[in-house]
C-alpha cells in the first residue's frame, strides 16, 4: 500500500480531478499506474498492460462518482483484481493448469523460473496470492473482494502457496 504522503497526495488529486482539472487527472494517473500494475501484472501476466488499461479506464470513468476519496486505493484494488482476472480468463495465453499437474520436486521443470510456475496457476489462484501476500489482505477481505467464501479463499491460498513453495525451494 502507498505511504501516507502518497495517499494524501492522491486524495487531493481526486478532489481536483472531480472538479474538472484534467492535469490533476494526469498526475493521478501517474500515481495509480504503478499501483494498478502491481496488482494486475501477477494476475494477468502477459496481458498485464491490457488489465492495467481496463482497470484505469474503469477507475477514471467512474471517478466523479467516488464519494469518499479516502477510499481510493481500496476501490482501485477491487477494480484491478476484477479486471485482471477477467482479462486473464479472456486471454488465450491463460490456460490454467490443474495444480496437481504442477512439477514435483526433482522434476527438471522446476528449473524454470518462478514466473513460469505462477503462470500455471489459474487467474483466481494468482489473485488470491496477490491479495493475501502482496497486498496484505486477510482471508475475509480477500474473499469479499473476490466474491468468494472465506473457506474457498483459504483453500486456494493453501494450494497456491504449496505449489509455489515447491518450485521456490527446489
Amino acid at each position: 500500500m502507498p505511504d501516507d504522503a502518497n495517499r494524501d497526495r492522491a486524495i487531493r488529486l481526486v478532489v481536483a480531478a472531480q472538479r474538472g482539472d484534467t492535469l490533476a487527472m494526469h498526475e493521478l494517473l501517474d500515481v495509480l499506474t504503478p499501483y494498478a500494475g502491481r496488482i494486475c501484472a501477477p494476475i494477468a501476466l502477459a496481458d498485464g498492460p491490457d488489465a492495467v488499461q481496463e482497470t484505469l479506464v474503469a477507475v477514471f470513468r467512474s471517478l466523479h462518482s467516488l464519494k469518499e476519496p479516502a477510499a481510493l486505493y481500496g476501490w482501485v484494488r477491487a477494480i484491478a483484481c476484477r479486471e485482471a482476472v477477467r482479462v486473464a480468463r479472456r486471454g488465450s495465453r491463460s490456460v490454467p493448469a490443474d495444480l496437481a499437474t504442477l512439477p514435483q520436486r526433482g522434476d527438471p521443470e522446476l528449473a524454470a523460473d518462478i514466473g513460469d510456475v505462477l503462470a500455471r496457476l489459474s487467474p483466481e489462484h494468482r489473485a488470491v496470492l496477490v491479495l493475501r501476500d502482496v497486498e496484505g489482505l486477510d482471508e475475509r477481505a480477500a474473499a469479499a473482494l473476490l466474491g468468494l467464501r472465506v473457506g474457498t479463499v483459504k483453500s486456494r491460498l493453501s494450494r497456491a502457496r504449496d505449489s509455489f513453495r515447491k518450485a521456490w525451494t527446489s
Partner: protein
Amino acid sequence: MTDTPSPQWPDTPLPQWPPTAPLDPVRRLRVLAAGVSGARVTTREIAVPCAEVEPLLADVDGELALLVPDMRRLRLTRADGDRVEAVARSRFGMHARFHGVRRPGWLWLQSRFVLIGIAATPSAARPGHTLVAFTGGVRVPGRAALVPVGVGRAGRKVLDRLDARLGRPG
C-alpha cells in the same frame, strides 16, 4: 482467521517477478479520455517510425499549431521538466493560456476552454509504423467534460494533417 505462513513461504519478495505492466502513451490517452465526458479518442497507424513522429508532437512552438484546427499560433512560454506552459491564439483572434505535460510521444494541454491530448507509440503489429492518437475539444468549465460536438471530426483533421506533414500516409 489467522494464517501462519509456512517457514518455507518466501520471506523475500518475489524477485524480478512479475514484470511490470506500464502503459504506453496511447493507452494512457485512452485512460484519461475515459475520465473526460464527451471525449473521443481517434487513432491512426502511420507508416513512419515513432522516432520521426515524436519530435513533431514535442514541437509546441512550431508544428503543433499546424496540426490543431482553429489554432493560428502557439507559443511555448515555459518549460520545467515535463511541465509546459504555452499561449495560443486562435484564428478568431482569441487568446488562451495552456498548461500541460510534454513527454516523449505525449502531449497533454489544457486551457480554461480547450483540451488537447496527443500520443504516439510504436505499432505493436507493424514494425516501423507508429500508432498515434488524439483527443480533445472544447471544455465544459468546472467539469471533466468536453462539448460533445465535432470531437471526432477534430481528431480526424489532426491525424490527417499529421499524415500529410509526414508525407507518408499509413
